[in-house]
């Protein structure tokens, strides 16, 4: 998965046209607890079930923190 894939995936999960790398639960109304579940589900599908093994992903509520966790687990391409 690339950063662009992640941005597209989050936008799709939140039913938005696009999101940028600064997006988070704090600055997007659509990123509420349900939206967060949609994001987690989409990431997990994209990673073919690997997301549930990433410690801390459930509480990562910004694009930047998700990218950091995916990088730490070698699951995102630069």
């Amino acid at each position, binding site marked *: 998965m690339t950063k662009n894939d992640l941005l597209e995936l989050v936008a799709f999960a939140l039913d938005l046209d696009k999101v940028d790398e600064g997006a988070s639960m704090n600055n997007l109304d659509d990123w*509420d*607890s*349900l939206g*967060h*579940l949609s994001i*987690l*589900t989409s990431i*997990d599908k994209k990673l073919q*079930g690997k*997301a*549930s*093994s990433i410690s801390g*992903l*459930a*509480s990562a509520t910004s694009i930047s923190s998700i990218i950091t966790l995916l990088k730490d687990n070698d699951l995102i391409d630069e």
Partner: protein
Amino acid sequence: MKFLSIDCMLGSELKTANDLSDHIVISTLKKIEEKSGIINRRVCSELESAASLAKKLLNNIESQKHLNDADLLIVVSESKPSPIPPMSSHILSEFGLKEGLIVLDLDSGCAGYVQALQVVDAFFRNPLIKKALIITTDAYSKLIKSDDRSVAPIFGDGSSFTVLVNDGSNSIKAFHNGTDATKADNLMTNENSNRSLHMEGAEIFMFVKKYIPPSIRHCLKFSSEEVESIDYFFLHQASLLVMKELREDLCISESKSPFLIANTGNLVSTSIPFVLSQYLDKLNNKTIVLSGFGVGLTWSTIVMELK
């Protein structure tokens, strides 16, 4: 082990999204309804409680008969009114002396019924233990604030009474249990005087994704079964979202994994017996999987072969 009967009692009040609309905006409630699959919830009235629902189930001649000749009673509940005595004492207080009855209490919530079946199975290895009863009862609504959208639109209150007899068969072919207490604070009540339930839905969701499909696969492998050879998967009824994820992950059809809480809400310890009760007449000579998961965070899975 043979299921003789399962009776259920739900809270008497029917609640809809509109009942929460003073506290949560209706568009949010509709989104939650769509994801959770829960349209109506059955909750206790002010006069009802987890103990009173269970007492209602026992308050008839047939139940009394079972209570008088059973060897083992397991009560599964997290809703006791005070730390001491156990919930079983609150429930049995009106039913007189039960000499010779082993009474055990489990407070493991949504996994509790499946754990209780394993305890019954172990007791039934002794042929002198001929009849066992399991009562589940919870009333989370008493712990929920109406403005907490992570829990208020989700949970209902209910109780069940299962009667099992020892027919000499070893019904449980495989089991897999576990707990991750490092994550316990994702589903717990706070410590202040106005106890209320707190749930981190995303953490619970990831816990389920991580542990439940492998637990079910482990049981299938150990019992030499395949998804296709299992007649029914009775999974804890947390929400439609969770059920859909498990179905997809394990490639289970909708018809084999019923979701029946659209008009009750998540009934916690009663969720699995509630579904099971509606299938009991279809379970002769069937192989079934039961998996409960939640508070703890704990899970419990079994494969049962029923005669």
